[in-house]
């Protein structure tokens, strides 16, 4: 393909994308001359260039569209729903031909007579019709549903009566409102300036730049090490350090694209689907300017589309059902993107029927995903998690929208593959929210460096849930066996073990060394939980992921390679593939089921037992994000409030134990901060030691028999639970009121 054609294809795609956005907006504001002009220009440009390049089929189709658009632009015709549907068909037709040109170089032998005829028909009768209507509105100033034109071959659903188009006065008042709600920017002027100040760059070139920057980072590390002793070099190397960091950031930024790139596809999908399903849906989008790495954006396109389809098909009810339930007949679908630290959270929420947990329970039993006995014991939250199991679908009938049993598990797998997480929240009758938590970039990930076979390997932090240290003296008894399957008893539950050295070098013995420390990395990959036994741990590092050649990728254990700070190469282990290779089954769901089998067990929450200034306290383990050891100098103060700049976010640090005060004056002193999640925010708690993880029992107040809050029985000691909600928000000015309960011995 020659350069000219390639350029033409890229430009046409962009033009058509713009046209698609404008068309869905046009439905809200049919008289908007700016939108019509924009659409006309896109088609006109295609027509003009095709004539030049000699694509006759494309030219003919574009020409037919241009005629219709010309009438619209000149105000001779008004864009109603039929015309917009016709224009969307034109858009699809043009896209199909462009795709053929891209694949084959020629435009294929297909014929578009039917479509061209349809576009022609839309010009005439609808034109007359519009005239009539204009007369009606001027005379009567009222508007009822119009009779369907004879030429209509579109199935018309009750929802497809044009709502705002009919009353010009109302329309004027309404016009700006939807634009604001959608976060849409005025398009025409923006397009002009963007073209002048931006430049198209090949992704391959960006990847190469990223590689070279990675290389530079490495060289810088070595330069810094080599020149550390030379005072004359310090200044220079410090500058090198700074420039490198800035450059790295700039190149990473160049790979970022706003989520509007995929959000902008949604109005069309929602429009088409709600029509074919007979739903009435209003789409609201927020945070479209949020940026994400290009490759990640590609990766979440399918899961997001799927989630939107699900919301329309299973979530939002039919208009009459909604009305009967006392809701607005028009459903609301909200897409929201927001950056939270090193992640971008994308939410798809609807105000539909929610997920009926009882249906989920029934379906899961019917499909044989869980046994009836277990299903009864499951709580609402656990039941919701079942929809992520492969082969689960609650759609009563298989529709072509969704419900083929390849639903949410695909969403979850796709998102987890790129290091993300999926959460679901649903309330019956109120709606469902699906939350995709995506890392900002794939190119650089946090990883723990482990040692095995005298080599370094990188374990992505995303899959790592905890580390267990087994000292040499405990090595002999730490592992239990069922036949030849090694198991470790982790807080009372058996954890299957995989020995990394044996996995990599079959034939080695599965045994912990009695001569040195052993470590088990507890991993959770796609619901598969297991312990990976390694010989040693090195520091966690932010690693730059380098792709492997196909031959090595085919081994299946490695997802890439990286260069470590000490210039060593390390292979990046893929926990999911290791689990598969070692035959670890999807046990996470089973385990949660086991955990709640015993009612008493269900009430037990796991706590992180910490010590601060001689007192013990408990932090709910589920809320703990990280335990950070850092020098006191990292703590900064806003007024009297200690804060920590953690991964670019400001974290209020709770210091009821007086740890920070005690260490004051020694900026090098190491302190431990437990980073916790509290609602939507993160808080830090300064402690002197982290002691253990244990399950706590409820304590009952003597006499009343009521469970007392704020305390738990941990290892037979009454221990205070840190009230995370009590950590004052930044800028609230209120004094925090977390209390460390004095421990008591039962």
């Amino acid at each position, binding site marked *: 393909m020659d350069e000219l054609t390639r350029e033409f294809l890229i430009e046409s795609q962009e033009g058509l994308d713009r046209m698609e956005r404008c068309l869905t907006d046009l439905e809200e504001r049919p008289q908007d001359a700016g939108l019509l002009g924009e659409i006309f220009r896109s088609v006109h440009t295609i027509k003009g260039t095709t004539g030049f390049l000699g694509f006759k089929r494309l030219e003919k189709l574009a020409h037919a569209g241009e005629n219709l658009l010309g009438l619209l632009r000149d105000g001779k015709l008004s864009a109603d729903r039929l015309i917009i549907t016709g224009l969307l068909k034109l858009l699809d037709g043009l896209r199909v031909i462009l795709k053929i040109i891209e694949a084959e170089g020629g435009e294929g032998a297909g014929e578009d007579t039917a479509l061209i005829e349809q576009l022609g028909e839309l010009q005439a009768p609808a034109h007359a019709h519009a005239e009539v209507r204009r007369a009606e509105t001027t005379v009567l100033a009222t508007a009822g549903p119009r009779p369907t034109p004879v030429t209509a071959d579109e199935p018309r659903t009750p929802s497809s009566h044009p709502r705002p188009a009919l009353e010009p006065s109302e329309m004027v008042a309404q016009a700006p409102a939807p634009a604001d709600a959608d976060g849409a920017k005025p398009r025409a002027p923006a397009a002009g300036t963007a073209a002048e100040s931006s430049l198209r760059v090949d992704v391959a070139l960006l990847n190469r730049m990223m590689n070279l920057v990675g290389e530079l980072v490495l060289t810088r590390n070595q330069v810094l090490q080599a020149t550390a002793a030379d005072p004359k070099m310090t200044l220079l190397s410090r500058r090198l350090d700074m420039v490198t960091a800035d450059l790295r950031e700039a190149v990473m930024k160049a790979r970022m694209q706003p989520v509007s790139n995929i959000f902008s596809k949604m109005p069309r999908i929602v429009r088409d689907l709600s029509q074919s399903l007979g739903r009435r849906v209003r789409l609201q989008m927020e945070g479209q300017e949020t940026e994400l790495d290009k490759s990640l954006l590609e990766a979440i396109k399918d899961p997001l589309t799927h989630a939107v389809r699900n919301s329309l098909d299973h979530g939002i009810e039919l208009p009459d059902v909604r009305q009967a339930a006392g809701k607005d007949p028009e459903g609301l679908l909200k897409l929201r993107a927001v950056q939270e630290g090193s992640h971008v959270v994308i939410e798809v929420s609807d105000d539909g029927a929610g997920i009926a947990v009882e249906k989920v329970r029934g379906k899961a039993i019917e499909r044989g995903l869980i046994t009836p006995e277990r299903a009864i014991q499951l709580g609402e939250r656990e039941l919701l998690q079942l929809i992520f199991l492969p082969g689960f679908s609650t759609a009563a009938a298989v529709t072509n929208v969704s419900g083929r049993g390849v639903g949410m598990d695909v969403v979850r797998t796709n998102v987890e593959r790129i290091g993300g997480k999926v959460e679901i929240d649903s309330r019956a009758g109120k709606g469902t929210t699906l939350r995709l938590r995506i890392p900002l970039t794939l190119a650089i990930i946090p990883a723990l460096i482990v040692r095995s076979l005298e*080599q370094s390997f990188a374990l992505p932090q995303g899959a790592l849930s905890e580390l267990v240290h087994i000292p040499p003296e405990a090595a002999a008894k730490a592992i239990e066996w069922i036949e030849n399957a090694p198991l470790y008893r982790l807080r009372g539950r058996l954890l299957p073990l995989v020995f990394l050295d044996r996995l990599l070098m079959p034939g080695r013995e599965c045994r912990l060394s009695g001569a040195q420390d052993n470590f088990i990395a507890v991993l959770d990959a796609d619901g598969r939980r297991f312990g990976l036994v390694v010989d040693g741990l090195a520091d966690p590092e932010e690693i730059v992921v380098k792709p492997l050649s196909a*031959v*090595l990728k085919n*081994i299946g254990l490695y997802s890439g390679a990286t260069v470590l700070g000490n210039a060593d*190469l390390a292979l990046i282990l893929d926990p999911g593939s290791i689990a598969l290779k070692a035959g670890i089954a999807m046990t996470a769901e089973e385990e949660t089921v086991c955990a709640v089998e015993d009612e008493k067990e269900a009430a037990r929450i796991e706590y992180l037992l910490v010590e601060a200034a001689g007192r013990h306290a408990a932090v709910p383990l589920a809320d703990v994000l990280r335990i950070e050891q850092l020098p006191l100098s990292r703590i900064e103060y806003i007024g009297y409030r200690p804060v920590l700049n953690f991964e670019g976010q400001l974290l209020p640090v709770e210091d009821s134990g007086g740890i920070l005060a005690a260490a004051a004056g020694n900026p090098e002193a190491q302190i431990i901060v437990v980073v916790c999640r509290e609602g939507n925010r993160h808080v830090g708690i300064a402690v002197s030691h982290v002691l253990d993880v244990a399950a706590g029992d409820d304590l009952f107040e003597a006499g009343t028999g009521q469970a007392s809050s704020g305390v738990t029985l941990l290892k037979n000691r009454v221990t205070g639970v840190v009230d995370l909600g009590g950590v004052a928000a930044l800028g609230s000015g209120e004094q925090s009121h977390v209390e460390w309960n004095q421990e008591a011995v039962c």
Partner: protein
Amino acid sequence: MLNPSGTELSSGKKAGALVEVCSVRLGQTLFGVPIRHILEIVGSARPQPVPLAPVYVGGLVHYRGDVLTTVSLRQLLDLPPKDGAQAILVIEGAGGNFGLLVDSVSEVLTVSSVDFEPNPSILGERQRALLAGAYKLKDTLLVMLDTERLDPLRLGASQAA
């Protein structure tokens, strides 16, 4: 530079197309790689072994911001592994660049097609697949390697077959 093996450009009297070949040493044999396939020569590298990789993979090396898969020529020709650092020819392959691990790199020779002979029929099946004939030098043979077939992608495919 004095050539220890006594190889040199064969006499320029004869006509024929001239080809530039990088000569490398492996054990006793002198092998040649057409210079236009070589991106760079990296001396004294220690590739990082990759557990569970196919035997012909010599390991990974860090090359200009990329991680390069290397192919061990010794392994391919059934020679015993050699301790210590090896030299790497970075070669442009169909599926990306790869490294060829050799004992040492000698000089670049210009050879004439007049001196070329195709693979002899007594060569084994495996060797024949990797070699692309030989140039007769004054007192030794320069055995040509077929870089296309040395590509790990290609080797992987042929091993799977």
